[in-house]
């Protein structure tokens, strides 16, 4: 029982991290109908920027305090992500208005490759550390209930809390602010939104910036867990099934989908994987999403916008 709970919690924590990346997908899809394959590359890019700025800024300005250094690095990385968002809108999406979803998908694939190469060219391609002071030591829960208790990484717990806070903040932003309303209007109908005076281009820059912000947070958390390296951009591939499962247009869906995938992955690895050779984590999520697609193509919470054939 203790082991089961441990696996379960491990899955939930991993799922929270997937949700963070899935959130970026959902935001952009909601606001512009673009399935952003470059989200993973953005996570890598943001994490690289953060890691390197945290190194360069304190050195350049002679700042001793780690917190100030990290904050400055965060701000600088955020500025970089806003610049990326602006450039993406200006150079790519602005030119591809009214194109089919597939074309846009392939364009974001191009953006992903470009960002991967560009990030590693200017920031270097070694493995970097991000140290924002997340505690690394494990802790034990329910020690009174089970012998030995349930082992949980504190870092994971913090990550989960941050992810939850982010989701709450984004929901508020979408529901309560004028910009959020504009974003939802654009998501519903580009033309109608434009005709009542919502500037489409600016909205896209905003939403890509928000996605950049989410990527930055995800990058920091993943980066401090695994180190900032190229494989970070592959983590995004794990988030794809999450979005499919939760529904492409639903923020809560991204979270719940992430949790389901995280838990399912860990449990299946432990209980099924050991029987058929292990390592099934890499495809389990995909096959789950695929089966789900056949039954309920819009995902758990998505809107029914899929064109059936």
């Amino acid at each position: 029982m203790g082991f089961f709970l441990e696996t379960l919690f491990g899955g939930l924590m991993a799922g929270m991290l997937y949700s963070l990346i899935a959130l970026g997908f959902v935001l952009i899809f909601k606001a512009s109908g673009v399935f952003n394959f470059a989200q993973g590359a953005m996570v890598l890019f943001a994490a690289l920027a953060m890691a390197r700025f945290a190194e360069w800024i304190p050195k350049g300005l002679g700042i001793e305090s780690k917190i100030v250094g990290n904050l400055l690095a965060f701000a600088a990385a955020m500025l970089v992500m806003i610049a990326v968002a602006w450039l993406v809108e200006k150079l790519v999406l602005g030119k591809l208005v009214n194109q089919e979803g597939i074309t846009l998908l392939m364009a974001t694939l191009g953006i992903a490759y470009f960002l991967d190469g560009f990030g590693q060219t200017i920031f270097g391609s070694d493995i970097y550390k991000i140290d924002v002071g997340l505690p690394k030591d494990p802790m034990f829960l329910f020690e009174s209930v089970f012998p030995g208790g349930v082992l949980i990484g504190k870092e994971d717990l913090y990550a989960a809390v941050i992810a939850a806070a982010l989701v709450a903040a984004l929901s508020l932003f979408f529901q309560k602010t004028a910009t959020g309303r504009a974003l939802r209007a654009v998501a519903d109908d580009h033309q109608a939104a434009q005709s009542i005076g919502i500037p489409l281009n600016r909205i896209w820059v905003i939403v890509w910036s928000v996605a950049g912000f989410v990527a930055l947070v995800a990058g920091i958390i993943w980066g401090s867990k695994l180190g900032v390296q190229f494989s970070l951009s592959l983590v995004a591939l794990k988030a794809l099934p999450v979005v499919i499962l939760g529904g492409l247009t639903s923020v809560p869906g991204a979270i719940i989908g992430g949790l389901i995938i995280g838990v399912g992955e860990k449990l299946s690895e432990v209980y099924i994987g050991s029987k058929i050779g292990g390592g099934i984590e890499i495809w389990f999520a995909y096959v789950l999403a695929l089966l789900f697609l056949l039954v309920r193509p819009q995902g758990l919470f998505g809107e029914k916008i899929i064109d059936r054939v």
Partner: protein
Amino acid sequence: MLYRENGQFKTSYRADQQVFPIAQDRIAIGLLLAFAIVVVPAVAPEYLFRAILIPFLILSLAALGLNILVGYCGQISLGTGAFMAVGAYAAYNFQARIEGMPLLASLLLGGVCATAVGVLFGIPSLRIKGLYLAVATLAAQFFTDWAFLRIKWFTNDSASGSVTVAGLKVLGQPIETPVQKYLFCLGFLIVFAALAKNLVRGHIGREWMAIRDMDVAAAVIGIRPVYAKLTAFAVSSFIVGVAGALWGFVHLGSWEPAAFSIDRSFQLLFMVIIGGLGSIMGSFFGAAFIVMLPIALDLLGVTVGFDTALASHLTFMIFGALIVFFLIVEPHGLARLWSIGKEKLRLWPFPH
């Protein structure tokens, strides 16, 4: 002035419908084939065969297959590497398990197995399309990556999924030197390119294109989407599977699942986009471009003096930028530029 069709009158439908209606095109293709079959093996150095020509031939075969699916039928696939892997490992199993199996037969049977897997993963395309289909094909990619790494039966119980083939022979002829390998792959490519060209010109190719352009309208005029889509998946994955088998058998010799990873899938998709969606010719252009660009950048790096890591990052950036560039400026890729050039040439030097 040479490229002009004045005086070439067609007196039969047959003559009017042929693949290359212009005499100069026929002559050019004939010369090109003669050059590729006779001159290249005689003069090209061994490095050229190993590093450029053989990969180019095999990857253009794979790109050809993918182009049928993505370019002609409009079904996106991010799982091409998976179908290549199925072709390669299936061919390996036929070769290793059945005594005296002819090489040609195992390569083609590898293609048949890839067809089966392709159709299986194509079934979701009957209900979903676009982005969702991309995810379904990604599932194929990750699943086969895992299957060939972990299920020992597929790899004849070898560790880490790596397998080796040696002593290739076709009809008593050994396929060992680079020149022999080159000619072998070239033969495959010519046959499959001719087949593919005629398929897409024919009845079934038009069905694919109708589905691509608008599936509902196609269904209304009596095209069965199920049949059209699944045949596109079948033909495409057959060609891709054979290409995968060739890649493993002829180019690599010994390989492991990582040779057919998701990067390979993306690479092939890029070939199709850059070369030209919906163009047989484009598959060749795309493959040539993507095979040669990294090598050219490496060479440039050596002469200008930056290191290989930077060269590989630059390759990434250039690929990415080119994808976006082509999607925005010329969605039909290099093949379209080629045909624009030809049109201009027909009127040159008096464009009126």
